[in-house]
């Protein structure tokens, strides 16, 4: 009986200690202005650049920005369900428009642009230069799902206008959830070509981009939306300003291969 009592008591004490440590762990990086801490839902394709901007922001202002990454559609769903967070940055402004329609976002601000490219391993071993090359049977083509990811949606829209969507759809070997999944497949050799945003290429020095008509005409406008009814509106706007500032956010976006807003026609 003593052993059992020891086990029961000991486990409770252990549990209390563990939970204490966990609660502390999450608090470790919590410095000044914890009330001003905002959260941004950010598209997976923008993860690398957002990490850099958030780090710079912390260094320059001492303010923490919490980030939550995922495919644009999933982020929208999470926002809809939880109504938490301050900013919503999908990979395509059409999602911001949807968020506005659902009364989740009050205002939006342009940040940068991205273009569509076809990505292949360095050296372009399958000699892909034109759209028709993508349709070849010996080319395993991977795309992001038009229902989940901005790149997929934009690709489908663009190609529907030119009438090529059906062909590309048929030639697509697999659909992936996010644009980075697509890039990973090409990197690992599971696919010969993938359709991604040019900005994503920054993280993949082993891959190269091919501009293919009519896809290269499409532009994805990145906008950040401010969540409707957030109590930290000012803090959110402050971060948006930082994102739009030429010497801060904009400079970083350029470094990461995005097109700046100044390039808008």
């Amino acid at each position: 009986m003593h052993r059992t009592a020891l086990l029961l008591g000991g486990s409770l004490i252990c549990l209390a200690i563990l939970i204490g440590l966990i609660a502390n762990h999450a608090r470790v990086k919590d410095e000044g202005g914890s009330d001003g801490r905002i959260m941004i839902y950010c598209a997976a394709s923008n993860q690398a650049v957002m990490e850099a901007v958030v780090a710079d922001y912390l260094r320059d202002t001492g303010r923490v920005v919490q980030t939550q990454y995922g495919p644009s559609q999933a982020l929208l769903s999470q926002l809809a369900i939880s109504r938490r967070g301050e900013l919503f940055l999908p990979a395509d402004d059409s999602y911001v428009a949807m968020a506005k329609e659902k009364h989740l976002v009050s205002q939006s601000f342009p940040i940068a642009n991205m273009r569509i490219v076809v990505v292949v391993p360095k050296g372009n071993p399958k000699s892909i230069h034109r759209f028709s090359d993508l349709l070849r049977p010996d080319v395993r083509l991977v795309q992001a799902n038009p229902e989940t990811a901005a790149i997929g949606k934009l690709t489908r829209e663009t190609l529907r206008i030119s009438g090529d969507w059906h062909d590309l759809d048929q030639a697509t070997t697999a659909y992936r959830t996010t644009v980075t999944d697509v890039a990973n497949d090409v990197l690992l050799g599971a696919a010969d070509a993938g359709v991604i945003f040019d900005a994503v290429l920054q993280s993949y020095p082993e891959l190269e981009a091919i501009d293919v008509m009519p896809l290269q005409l499409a532009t994805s406008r990145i906008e950040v939306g401010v969540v409707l009814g957030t109590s930290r509106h000012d803090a959110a706007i402050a971060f948006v300003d930082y994102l739009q500032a030429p010497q801060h956010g904009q400079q970083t976006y350029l470094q990461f291969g995005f097109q700046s807003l100044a390039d808008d026609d």
Partner: protein
Amino acid sequence: MTKTTGQEAPRLAADCNTKSTSVGSRRSDIGFFLVTGGLSASFVVLIALLLLADIAFASFGQFANVISKPEILASVRLTLLSCSATTIMGLWVAVPLGYLLARFRFPGRWVIDTLVDIPIVLPPLVLGLSLLILFHLPFGHWKLEHWFSNEAGLAITYNWPAVLLAQFTVSCAFAVRTMRVTFEQLDPRAEDVARTLGCTRGQAFLQVAMPQSRRGMVAAATIAWARALGEFGPILVFAGVTRMRTEVLSTSVFLELSTGQLDAAVAVSLLMVGLAMVVLLILKVFGPGKSQ
């Protein structure tokens, strides 16, 4: 057919005699071992090949680089803490619940049984989604999430309690299953006698049933810890992946993968495998060795 005469019988007997002493009539178990060995080997070899592929992909230099990143170290720390906490919580629920389900027939028992198994069959993302919905479902002006943040000062969603809850929901279900089977295999007779000797049901449980279930508890703890370690979907959706705050190793792999750092992703994966092996080994060593 010719009728068998009395003369046939002795010859048959003679045949039997010679048959039993002639060489080549002995059987061997080699067939059994080849078949079972072959089937088992195919699985074991597959796992081994997976690990070897990962090891070949990651370079040692990268590995050392990755694990010394402060985010990864923080992730390891949170992983160890949360998996252990989840396991303890899981056992606290699984042992009594497993006992109840094993010993008592009550109306609606099958409902409880089915409910307990649901986290096991649900796709992890659905589980995460359901948790998210539960905490943010408005009942008029009231939300579970707000109750927690107002009354207890505790933010759940996208915070550390969400990590624990997400892990607990799944790993506890496995632990309950294990404990129920454990208690079902125990002879209830000993507990009956204990009750006639003066034990209440609680005393019989604590003094007779629980001590006998130690091996089962170690098994339940092992499986609970392992499932908590591998939990990804619910954590992603319900707790988010915030570096240094709610990042655990399973979501670290996801993050590295999403930024195209495949080397780092594989390095973290191998780290997880190593960690899992160490903990499983510890549980094996410190669990009761002999069967009671």
